[in-house]
């Protein structure tokens, strides 16, 4: 991940690693107060051209307020916002080179699909012939060719979503803002639409900023993710970084599932630590860059899919392991989830791919099992 080793290819694909790259959207010391309530608290962020950037957080974390400030519906209490080098902090929404896809889609119910998509171009004063062409092209792009004369009431949820997307894209904005773009779709349609969104983004090269509470959505879609909590960013990074190298318990827990173990460092050798975890009945090893001392309290985070589950005691001493009993499990077809009770009573979550096809169950309730994981899989957290 280090800057020194980044190749040119990496720098074009990951401009945030390039200290000379010009950010496309600059959010600078932005705060937003509603009375006594601080919705967004002194936030700084650079987003680069062509990124598909996600702002991820639980409801009420300030992510929607931040998006509305980018769109121009809210004015920051302090700080400024630049888009393509121009300060747009006080520019009203109708003059910003930004379009938004609303969570509710906000399709005008009294207009046809064509009129909805053409609305923005009409306000811009584009010639009717060109409007006709651009709307038709855009409807084609979102696979709604021939839907122009329909009324919004005649559309399914997925079709409405595409109308909203087409309407926001047809003006060729510099930035497209998407508020929970997939929240209202069912699971199958969601998966399909996710990839469609990415293809469209790729094709048009428009910078996307997505706000979502759905970590899975953010993981799949994004070039980078900003995790937001109580009005501020607590971690910004690529999906892989945020998932594999969470900076805090909150991030580790919010993105994906995780087993968090309280521990105390007993010895330290370079970047390897050995910590006593009372819940584990034995010691846990981990690697960390953090400057820690013997005796420090830390939290060890291990993802369920990083843990191997077996009935035979593994003989590989390079891995850490612990014994337990299966308390409960769930079969999901492609994988199974196990809840394993340790001697201390602590429950550890484990997920395993169902690689073998077998009608008989491999593991049962109350089976005695061993859990083991690579030492490198354990993440040390202090925050």
């Amino acid at each position, binding site marked *: 991940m280090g800057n020194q080793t980044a190749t040119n290819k990496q720098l074009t694909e990951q401009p945030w690693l390039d200290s000379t790259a010009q950010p496309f959207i600059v959010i600078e010391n932005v705060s937003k107060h509603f009375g006594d309530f601080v919705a967004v608290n002194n936030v700084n962020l650079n987003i680069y051209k062509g990124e598909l950037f996600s702002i991820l957080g639980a409801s009420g974390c300030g992510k929607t307020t931040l998006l509305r400030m980018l769109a*121009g519906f809210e004015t920051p209490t302090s700080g400024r916002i630049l888009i393509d080098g121009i300060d747009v902090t006080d520019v009203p*929404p*109708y003059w910003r080179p930004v379009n938004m896809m609303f*969570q*509710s889609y*906000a399709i005008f*119910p009294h207009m046809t699909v064509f009129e909805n998509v053409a609305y923005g171009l009409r*306000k811009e004063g584009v010639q009717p012939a060109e409007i006709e062409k651009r709307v038709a092209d855009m409807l084609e792009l979102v696979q709604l060719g021939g839907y122009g004369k329909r009324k919004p009431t005649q559309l399914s949820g997925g079709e409405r979503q595409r109308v909203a997307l087409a309407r926001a894209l047809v*003006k060729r904005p510099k930035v497209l803002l998407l508020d929970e773009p997939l929240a209202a779709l069912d699971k199958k349609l969601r998966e399909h639409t996710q990839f469609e969104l990415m293809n469209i983004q790729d094709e048009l090269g428009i910078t996307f900023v997505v706000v979502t509470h759905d970590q899975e959505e953010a993981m799949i879609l994004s070039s980078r993710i900003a995790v937001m909590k109580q009005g501020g960013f607590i971690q910004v990074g690529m999906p892989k970084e945020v998932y594999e190298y969470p900076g805090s318990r909150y991030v580790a827990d919010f993105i994906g599932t995780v087993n968090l173990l309280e521990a105390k460092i007993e010895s330290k050798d370079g970047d390897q630590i050995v910590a006593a975890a009372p819940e584990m009945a034995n010691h846990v090893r981990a690697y960390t860059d953090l400057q820690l001392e013997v005796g420090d309290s830390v939290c060890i985070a291990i993802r369920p899919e990083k843990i191997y589950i077996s009935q035979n005691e593994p003989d590989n001493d390079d891995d850490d392991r612990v014994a337990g009993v299966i308390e409960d499990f769930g079969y999901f077809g492609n994988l199974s989830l196990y809840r394993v009770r340790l001697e201390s009573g602590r429950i550890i979550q484990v997920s395993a791919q169902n690689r073998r096809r077998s009608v008989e169950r491999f593991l049962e309730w109350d089976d005695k099992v061993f859990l083991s994981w690579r030492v490198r899989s354990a993440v040390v957290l202090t925050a």
Partner: protein
Amino acid sequence: MGQGRGMLWQWFAVAVPYAWLLVFFLAPFVIILKISLADPVIAQPPFTPFIDDQNNLAVTLENFRFLLSDRLYLLTYLNSVMMAGVATLLCLLLGFPMAYGIARSSPVQRNLLLLLVVLPFWISFLLRVYAWMGLLNNHGVINNVLMWLGVIDQPIQILYTNIAIYIGLVYSYLPFMILPLYASLERLDLDLLDAAQDLGATPRQAFWDVTWPLARPGVIAGCLLVFIPATGEYVIPFLLGGPESLMIGRVLFDEFFVNKDWPLASAVAIILLLLIVVPIVLLQRFQSAEDDGART
């Protein structure tokens, strides 16, 4: 069994209001229509029977011919429609911002504001109109306050003028405008206005492109609820209006109770009804045709 019972209830629920309308609206209407086709006589009842002594149908269109040829009656109709129209427009201009404000206020405030809108109904309509006489007359509250403030040095004549009628009409019918407008504005999704602005519409354009068309059913309902009763209004012009303010409700009353010309009064009523019903039916035709056109 259960379904049959449900059907019975459904039938009952529909039948009762229809029966009510049949007995208390359609039947009287037919009777009025019959009387309007008779000649007046000094007798009890004061009109000629439908079928005369020789068993012939005794029908005359004389009343209608008279009404349509008399300039005074035509002027009165025109004046009523015009005054009701102006009052409706004033109600819309006043009511729209009020309904908009109520729809945009917090839920707690909203209930209070709606309560205030309907609060006047707790007092009899007649009493409220009488109260306006007290407010508007030459030694009334308004004139006294204006004189005390030094705005005027002698009372201005408001009572018994058309202005007093307008005040009375707007005051009395404003809630009927506000409530349907509120209902349609309250349903309006605010995201739609944001979306319009996001796509390049100024707030004013967003209002005319989004708010106004979506509020139109409320506007039409409110206008009809004000215009129809205002056209035939009797109490307000009678109590607040002057001798020169001709409204059809007063003429109707005078023909019935002063001139005792029941057939002519009935004809006045029939024409009034046509005057109101025909444009509404046309409007609704137009409306549904437009909706269908947009849908296909």
